[in-house]
């Protein structure tokens, strides 16, 4: 880029990192989604989202079609600089994994990816029973 405009593009497709998989596994543990998401997650590829370095990633291969469906898991932790961080795992409107959204309270870049033991899982969303919607809708 030759100007100072922000780069709002997704990063290149890359394999899901080990620590990201561990975070997702912690979030969905004990939920109806655990058995559906975890078996295939190791082979997942993602793109870094242009969120200012907070660590959000997108699963969809066709981001231009992205449309939020529902949040299936939520967690929170403290970053190394003691700032609270919220993470949510979201599905698109077809019931496919959409993104892992990371929102650091002060919008600053994530300093250190969390250890799963440091994450508090928050159960306050509805608990959908299945991962995929009926495509006849």
């Amino acid at each position, binding site marked *: 880029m030759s100007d100072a*405009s922000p780069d709002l593009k997704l990063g290149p497709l890359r394999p899901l990192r080990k620590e990201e998989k561990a975070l997702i596994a912690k979030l969905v543990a004990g939920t109806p989604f655990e058995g559906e998401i975890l078996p295939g997650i190791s082979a997942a590829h993602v793109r870094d*989202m*242009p969120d200012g370095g907070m660590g959000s990633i997108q699963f969809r291969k066709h981001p231009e079609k*992205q449309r939020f469906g529902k949040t299936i898991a939520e967690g929170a932790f403290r970053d190394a600089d003691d700032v609270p961080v919220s993470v949510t795992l979201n599905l698109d409107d077809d019931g496919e994994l959409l993104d892992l959204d990371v*929102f650091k309270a002060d*919008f600053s870049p994530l300093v250190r990816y969390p250890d799963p033991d440091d994450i508090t899982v928050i159960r306050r969303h509805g608990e959908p029973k299945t991962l995929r919607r009926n495509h006849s809708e």
Partner: protein
Amino acid sequence: MNNATGVVFGRNPNQTHHTFRYTDALGLDRSNVMDAIRRDLQPHLPLPVPPPNDAPFIGTVTVDGMELRYHAYPMEEGLVNVGRITGP
């Protein structure tokens, strides 16, 4: 622009884009979304610092007939950061 009432939706264009990515996809005007969230938050202020369980406050607003859910983290001195808004 973003902090007229102490409610901030991102500190740079990347963060603001990230916050509004779903409502943008729904074709909602950002100003209408911000106004609705600010109005909804007002009776809840000040939010407790630190937030319980380090989890953000979650509120619900309706804009152009669409129900939106927003996540807000309180900061010191009355500042509230809204960094996640999801659609219906």
